[in-house]
């Protein structure tokens, strides 16, 4: 793929949180995102997976400038957005938006659906008259599968799936080109999840929007994503084509993670071999030296303790692992 259809290019991004206790104590950081680089192409869905505490949400929020990055660059359509302020930042938000996980917490209970969807248009002064705004709101409601007369109702009158539709309508109010979806379906019931996934896919096809899709449900991520990145303790361990990566995960962590996904099929689900990981995620306050996965990795060697392996390209698949490096020399 050529350079010019890259919409978002992340280079060596770091987001550290200062968690020092006390005034004179030694500085302590949680390295939520540690030296992460990847790209998202126009019109593509990039899935970001990993277990809780791996930094996937922090990464999404850093890209949206909800958190300030500690270091590194984020080029959005060729322009570094990590230093944007004031009017420029507002301009960035016109084309990049975020959908939150919990549709119960992300909608103001005192505003009507119409007011919620209209708010971004008013902030950005998109339309001159109220009539134009109203017309656009109704159009958005139809796009996300709600009825025009829902405009005067309040969020509490809607179910979880419908609320998520409302927040998607608000996200679309500014015609964004890039949307970060932070676990948009994990609070919803199974039969409703598929409704929202299909809606997001339809919107993407109609408008050519790029998504960063963050989730811990690995089967749904595979369904919606073109490419997938696997994170572990702040680091990107593997990036590749979604189908390829699921068929043949190369990093030992991706292998273990995918083997643990429960398969909705009694024959394969009961018979398949799982890779059992020892122990649990190390504390991000005190991560292991070198490769963060080495404490649970079945293939860890002395070398893994010495330094973090780089993400290297193996025929289009990016993997950060010394073992993969050795095997492919």
């Amino acid at each position, binding site marked *: 793929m050529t350079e010019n259809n890259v919409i978002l290019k992340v280079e060596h991004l770091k987001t550290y949180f200062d968690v020092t206790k006390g005034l004179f104590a030694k500085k302590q950081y949680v390295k939520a995102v540690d030296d992460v680089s990847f790209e998202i192409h126009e019109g593509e869905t990039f899935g970001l997976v990993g*277990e*809780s505490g791996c930094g996937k949400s922090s990464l999404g929020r850093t890209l949206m400038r909800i958190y300030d990055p500690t270091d590194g660059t984020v080029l959005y359509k060729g322009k570094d957005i990590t230093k944007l302020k004031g009017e420029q930042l507002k301009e960035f938000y016109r084309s990049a938006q975020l959908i939150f996980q919990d549709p119960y917490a992300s909608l103001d209970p005192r505003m009507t659906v119409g007011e919620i969807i209209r708010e971004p248009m008013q902030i950005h002064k998109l339309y001159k008259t109220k009539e134009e705004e109203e017309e656009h709101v109704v159009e958005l409601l139809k796009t996300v599968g709600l009825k025009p007369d829902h405009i005067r109702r309040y969020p509490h009158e809607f*179910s979880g*799936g*419908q609320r998520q539709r409302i927040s998607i309508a608000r996200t679309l109010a500014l015609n964004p080109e890039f949307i970060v979806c932070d676990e948009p379906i994990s609070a919803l*019931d*199974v*039969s*409703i*999840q*598929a*409704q929202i*996934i*299909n809606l997001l896919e339809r919107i993407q096809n109609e408008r050519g929007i790029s998504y960063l899709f963050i989730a*811990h449900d*690995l*089967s*749904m991520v*595979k*369904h919606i994503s073109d490419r997938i990145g696997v994170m572990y303790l702040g680091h990107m361990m593997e990036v590749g084509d979604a*189908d390829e990566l*699921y*068929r043949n995960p190369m990093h030992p962590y991706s292998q*273990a*993670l*995918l*083997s*643990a*996904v*429960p*398969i*909705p*099929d*009694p*024959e*394969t*689900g*009961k018979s398949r071999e*799982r890779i*059992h*990981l020892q122990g*649990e*995620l190390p504390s991000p306050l005190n991560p292991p030296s070198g490769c963060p996965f080495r404490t649970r990795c079945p293939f860890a060697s002395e070398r893994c303790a010495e330094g973090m392996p780089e993400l290297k390209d193996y025929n289009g698949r990016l993997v950060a692992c010394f073992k993969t490096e050795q095997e492919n020399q």
Partner: protein
Amino acid sequence: MSETEKKSHILDVHDLEVEFETDQGIVHAVRGVTYEVNEGEIVGLVGESGSGKSVSMYSVMGLLAENGHIRAGDIKLDGRDIARDAFANKKEYEKAMEEIRGRQMSMIFQDPLTFLNPTRTIGDQICEVIMNHNKVTREEARAKAIDLMTQVGIPSPEKRIRQYPFEFSGGMRQRIIIAIALANKPRLVIADEPTTALDVTIQAQVLDLIKDLSRKNGSSVILITHDLGVVASLCDYIYIMYGGKIVESGTDREIFYDPRHPYTIGLLNCINNPEADEQKELKPIPGSPPDLLKPPAGCPFVDRCEKAMNICRNRMPSYTQYTENHKAMCWLDEVKRRQEEKHD
């Protein structure tokens, strides 16, 4: 069904109805469900939020909220009637249930942090359930607790037995809950979404643990979940609940390979199998579940069913039996069957 077969059931729930009184009116959460759980079997209870799956199990345990009550139905554990009606008064019922809970049946909850007491050590909490049901000294209970912690895979149990819940990770806490639930080798363990709060690699560990320990102790397990992947990889027998009713039940293979109820078919169409090479298109079920304040007179799924007929709206369908184990509650098959009978 013959008398001898009935005896091997650990749990028999018959026509259970549960209601809740709320400010808006009476919620008919469970509307006549019948379950059987055999010895040593792992049974899955699948449904979406509000389907009544948890409430029906809380009724069995005698743990309904204040505003809820069992309106009708029999509950038999190991042949013994344990429904509230079987006891003379509330006090006797509570006393009997206290004996039963933790010894004959126990529960694994979704969120271990709300179940464990934050102000008492893990050791205290495991010992409590052992000492409540057995005549043992403190030392004996402690030794048993350490043994249990080893069984559920907690490293250095001698040290960790003195620690408090906050010192354990989510996965480790769930292991403690399992240790407490299995302490007295109960006949029946009810696990309510035991892995929903856990990450996928930890989930795999905990599910394997539940499976291995239940096999070892000969306990039956009822697994309440919405995750069809978890059900497929663990359960022998599956009940599908919707709108307070069991709409279909059968063995794991019957449910996944030969689903009959439109809701079961719909559920299977809206999940993705990551192992499949060809990605199928997800077919969501339109609409949302019925309001159980005013449950529909007919089939609860009627508003979302693409095959709905007039009769579905007005009359509750009865069960059609396909095999010894497999049945579904749907007018489509019922109507077909009646037509065939007419022709014969």
